[in-house]
Structures are given as structure tokens and as C-alpha cells.
């Protein structure tokens, strides 16, 4: 219902009174509702994230072997120990090697899978599911399958059996760092586990690219295939690619399960989390040095993330481009 004014412009009819009674008291308070819904999460965050971080900071200034309630203050000794620890520094190098390989490899594989699945006319949902399914597999389970079945060093290991058909001798894939075949095992297991997830992100981004762009390019004489991909698809995927690379880097920093399970008690192939595990929770049980290492690592991750964000423009609005 509307009314006619002198200017001939209709004005909205007054709203009908709501049949629901207005809420009163705490339940009607937005502040109360905010705390009701976010409170439990914030309490969990405080107890399980911030408190341990603060406790870790406290422990890092104490001699804390076999105890988390230490009494001997050692100042910055633990930090000096970790920063001069050859193994901890080596773990950062291991991470760098891992990231250098796994980030572009996963980016390329997941983008390739996305392009392939997106072009399918039939069974698209089937293939999307097939490639996504490994994401549901635990890293530990996948590592054991890789270690004991595919890359087993004995003659009935799957890959060794296959290679023996060509007269190639058994290879102990994980026993020795020379040659470093263990990287092949680690990279393939992670690629298998995570490529499907990032493929889904790329498929979503691909489906958001306006078809008109391709049509306009076609009218302008652009050839379908590489030229279109390079000049239209890839630039349009820039924001998604940036997010994917950031996520991949963070995931690489958190690498633990496959290294821990595939390279049991080696001194090589230890990324920072595995190194810190052996320092703080493994046989050494040195919570002071482990905490110092964890905080150094946290600062490092923050720095790298900020630098990467600055370099790749993550989070920058369209208008600022």
C-alpha cells in the first residue's frame, strides 16, 4: 500500500507492527548475544592458544628439562642455544628446500587439475571428488602407505617391483640421505594429500571468470589455449593464486607428520617443527630450549608472511591495485 504525495512520488507505507513481542533484557542485548556466541570460542582460544604461548614465553627464560614448572632462571641462554644450534638452523634450511619445491609443485598441479576438471563435459563431479578425496586421508596413514607399500626398500615394495622389470636394483628410498631419495617420497605424499583441496579453490575461481572476457578475446583474435590462459585466465586467478601460495607456505611451515613418520630418528630431513619436537617433547624433554625455538619460529613465520603479503599484495583491495 502506498500514498500519493503532492510531488507524485509514492512514499512507503508504514510498516505493520511486528506480531512478535520486542525482546527485553539480556536476550535482546546485542552485546550479550555477541559474548554468548563468541565467549566460548574466546575462552578456548585463551586457554588453548594464548595461555600456552605465554607459558612458552615464560619457559623460554628458564632451565626446564623434564619439568614445565621450572625455577632456575637462565635469561636468554635458551635463545642463544637455539640460534647457535646447528640442527635448528639446518631445520630452517630443510624447510626452505621443502617450500621451494612443494609450493610451486602443488600450485601447478592443483591449477592443472582444476583446468582439466573444469573443461570436462561429463563426469566432472566424479573426477572432482576423486582428486579431492585424498584431502580426507590423514597424513600419518598416507605416510605409512607410502613408506611400507609404495616406497618400501625391499624387493616387494611397489616401486622396486616395478623398477625391477627394467633390471633396476632395489632402492632404499628412505635409508640414506645420499642420494636424497627421501625428498621424492615426502614431496609426492604431500602433493597427493593437498593438491585436491587447492584444486577446488581454483575451480571456484575459474567459474567466477566472466565468459564475456573469453568471447571478447576471441573476437580480438586471441587463440584459445595457451594465449588465452596466459592473458586472461592466469591474471584473473591472481587473487586466488596469492591466497593459495600463502596457504601452501603456512602449511609447509607446519609440516610435521610425513617427515616424522617417514624419517624416523634421522638427523636429516627435519623441518622446524620436527626439530622442535625432538628438542622439547622427544627424548630430550628440554622445554626451555624448545620454547625458545618455538618463539623464534613464530617470529620468523610472521616476518615471512608479512613480507610475502607485501610482495604479492595479499589482502590489498581492488581499488589500490
Amino acid at each position: 500500500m502506498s500514498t500519493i504525495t503532492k510531488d507524485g512520488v509514492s512514499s512507503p507505507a508504514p510498516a505493520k507492527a511486528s506480531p512478535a513481542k520486542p525482546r527485553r533484557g539480556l536476550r535482546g542485548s546485542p552485546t550479550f548475544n555477541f559474548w554468548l556466541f563468541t565467549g566460548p570460542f574466546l575462552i578456548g582460544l585463551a586457554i588453548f592458544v594464548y595461555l600456552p604461548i605465554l607459558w612458552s614465553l615464560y619457559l623460554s627464560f628458564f632451565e626446564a628439562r623434564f619439568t614445565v614448572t621450572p625455577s632456575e632462571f637462565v635469561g636468554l641462554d635458551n635463545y642463544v642455544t637455539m640460534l647457535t644450534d646447528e640442527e635448528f638452523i639446518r631445520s630452517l634450511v630443510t624447510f626452505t628446500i621443502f617450500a621451494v619445491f612443494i609450493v610451486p609443485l602443488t600450485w601447478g598441479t592443483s591449477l592443472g587439475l582444476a583446468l582439466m576438471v573444469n573443461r570436462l563435459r561429463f563426469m566432472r563431479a566424479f573426477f572432482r571428488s576423486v582428486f579431492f578425496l585424498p584431502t580426507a586421508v590423514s597424513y600419518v596413514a598416507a605416510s605409512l602407505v607410502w613408506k611400507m607399500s609404495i616406497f618400501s626398500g625391499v624387493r616387494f615394495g611397489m616401486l622396486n617391483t616395478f623398477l625391477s622389470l627394467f633390471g633396476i636394483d632395489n632402492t632404499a628410498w628412505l635409508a640414506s640421505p645420499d642420494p636424497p631419495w627421501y625428498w621424492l617420497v615426502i614431496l609426492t605424499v604431500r602433493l597427493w594429500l593437498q593438491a585436491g583441496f587447492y584444486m577446488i579453490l581454483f575451480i571456484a575461481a575459474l567459474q567466477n571468470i566472466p565468459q564475456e572476457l573469453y568471447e571478447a578475446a576471441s573476437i580480438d583474435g586471441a587463440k584459445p589455449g595457451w594465449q588465452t590462459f596466459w592473458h586472461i585466465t592466469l591474471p584473473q586467478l591472481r587473487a586466488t593464486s596469492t591466497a593459495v601460495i600463502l596457504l601452501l607456505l603456512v602449511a609447509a611451515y607446519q609440516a610435521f607428520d610425513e617427515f616424522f613418520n617417514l624419517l624416523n630418528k634421522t638427523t636429516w630431513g627435519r623441518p622446524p617443527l620436527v626439530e622442535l619436537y625432538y628438542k622439547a617433547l622427544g627424548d630430550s624433554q628440554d622445554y626451555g630450549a624448545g620454547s625458545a625455538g618455538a618463539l623464534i619460529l613464530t617470529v620468523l613465520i610472521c616476518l615471512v608472511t608479512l613480507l610475502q603479503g607485501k610482495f604479492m599484495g595479499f589482502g590489498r583491495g581492488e581499488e589500490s591495485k
Partner: protein
Amino acid sequence: MSAFRNSNLDRRTALRAALGLAAAGGLAACGGNTGRSSGGGAGLTQYFHAYGEAGTEQAIKRYAKAYKDSNVTTQWITGSNFESKLFASLLTDKAPDCFEFHPQLQMIESGQVADLSDLINPVKDDFNPADIASHTVDGKIYGIRMIDDPQFFFYRPSLFEKAGVEVPQTLEELIEAAAKLTTDKVKGAYLGNTLHSMINPLIWSAGAQHLDDKNQIAYHTDAVVDGFKQLRKLFTSGDLLLDAPTDFWDPSAINQGLTAMQWCGMWAMPQMQEALGDDLGIFPFPKVGDAGKQSVYNGGWSMFVNAKGKNLEATKEYVKWLWIDQKEYQEDWALSYGFHIPPRTSIAASADKLKSGLPAEGVKLFNEYGNFDNIGWTQASITALEDVLANSVRKGGDPDKELTKADAKVNKELKKLFG
């Protein structure tokens, strides 16, 4: 109207359901492997690592069930990180009341294990003296040995005969034997995937010790350095089985015909005999260098009581009942699943299964060449030498330099322990 309301599930119902689930979860968490439906006294928890022999888990739970004064819950911890899980849990309120482990001084220094002298002293003379010595600090005994586990080489005499190989007396002979025994189907030797089990016998066979009488480093000798170099030679020879599906403690490698000789423990002897029949022999770790002597690692497991546990006295009662009083269970534990040597001399003397054949030979090697853990050789020192092995044997570094690096770590540990 929300979908919630459509399904007649309002927020109160949802909240009630959630609380109900939480309560059910809490009640479920109160359960566990007590092995019985009810029981009296204090509720006790014991930690065990997962033994490879079939029936061991059931046996431990059966013993616990037979104890009437307390409800005893068993945590049977699978995986290869029993130590880490145990150490971490000992820092929390969920720490076990008693647990199996090896004698290590840092646990005593940090007040984690209780003095059990009053339980053991009345029967002290019935224990293997070396077992008592390895658990004693300043006259107090901190753990009860449950089983002794000698480790040595197992080999297939038929394959030795076929290759014209004699039982090796020295490490050089072992390397030569491995080369002669290797075929396209069978590798000469299997020493485990990490080779860590080689460290202790290598030190002893080279005529050295981990620590001397003054608790100072005694492992860093020329013979030990040479031993690591020889192990590297074996590692790169192509005659060593690497990356096997199971580690040295499991007899699968020799049972499946993957190797002609394997370092393993006496616990696996029954499984090997079942798979290989009489085609099985044993020999100690060969001597390393001219001044060396053959050695056998007398491993094993002991029961410790958590000194900070809430039920200290009740736990000591349980531990005494099972590992001092119940000789029947102790014999069953040592001999019914794998072969272990009972630390109680009276049980060992009456154990018919150990009196003849290969088990008797195992006992002989245990007595003749055996070396026990040093209580001052703790986890940090163990890890330091494991790194030496990884870096020099598997990675090709200089053993002398790696041992020097380990010396710094071990000295730091010794300073903390002994001042």
C-alpha cells in the same frame, strides 16, 4: 522460521542434547581397559609399550584383573615413541601410577620415580645382581626388573653353509660374510632400519664403556671410531638390508627370507623357530679391533612407580604383588609369549624352556658376553650417540668429529647429573 524449529528441535532441546552428549563422553572417558566390570580400592594406571609377541597385552590385563585391592587400568601404548609419551605424561595430572621403562638417572634426579628398596630388599638375593646394580643409586633401588632381554645376531646355518661362511668373530669377518651371503633375493645382514641398536654392542665389542667409574666419557676411543667406519663400509656395500617393513625387534626380515642374519632379541626366538625350524643359530656381536671382545646387549624392561602419583602406597602394593609375590605371573610373562630371561634367579633356574637348545645357548651368551645399561647413561646421551651413528654411518660424516660433537652434549648432561 529456522530449520531447527521445523524439526521440533529448539535451542533448549539442542542444549540438553549437547549436555547429555558431554556427560556421556565424560562417563565414557572414565572407562578404560580395567579388564573387569568393578573393583575396589584406588584406581591405578600402568603404562606399557606394545610388545610384538601375541598375547602379551591380554596377559598384562589378566594379571591386573586378578589384583583385588585396586582397579588397575592398562594403557598399552603403540607406536615407536613410548619414551616421549611417557615423559610428557609424567609432567601432567594424567601421569601413570606405575610404568615400565629402563633405569635412567635423570628420572631419579627429577623425583619422578619412587624408591622401591623396601619392596626389593627382602628378595634382593633372588635377583640377578647386575639387574639390582643397574637400578641402584646411593644404595636405593628404584625399579623392579621384569624381564632381561639379550640381543645378538640370529643367522641361517643353511645359508652360511651354502656360501661357505663361518660364524664371524670380528666385525671385518661379519662384513665379509654379509658380502658372500648376499644374493639377488637375500641380503647378507639386517641391523635394523635406524641401526641404533648397533651403538651399545659396538662400544662394548670395541673394549670400551659408555662411562668410566668416575662417570666420565669412556666411549670415545680409536676402536669405536674404527667400528663406526666399518659399519659405514657395511652400510654402503649393498649387502645390508635397508628400509625393511619392520625394525630390528621384529623377526619378519629373517623369517621372510630377506636376510641371512639379523640382529634381534631373544624375545623373538619362538617366532623364528616356528618359521625356520632348526635352521637358526645365534652369535654375539663380533669383536671390534684387536683389543675388543664379543658382546651381547642385555636389554630388558623394569617396573617403576611414579613418585608424584596420588596413590603411591597403593601402587607400591600392586607392584609388589605382581612383580615380587606372583612368581607364576612373572614366569608366564617371561616365557609364555616370547623368550625373556626372568631376572629372579629362582624362576630362571626352574624355567624348563631355557634349559636346552637355542634358548639355553641364548642364556649362555647372556651370562658370558652380556653388558647391562648404565643408569647414568640417560636419554640425552643416548640421543647424542644415535646422532653420531646417523651422521657417520648413514650420512658418511667423520665418526671422530661426530663423536667430539657428541662429547659436548654428553658432558653437558653429565654435568647436570653429577655436577
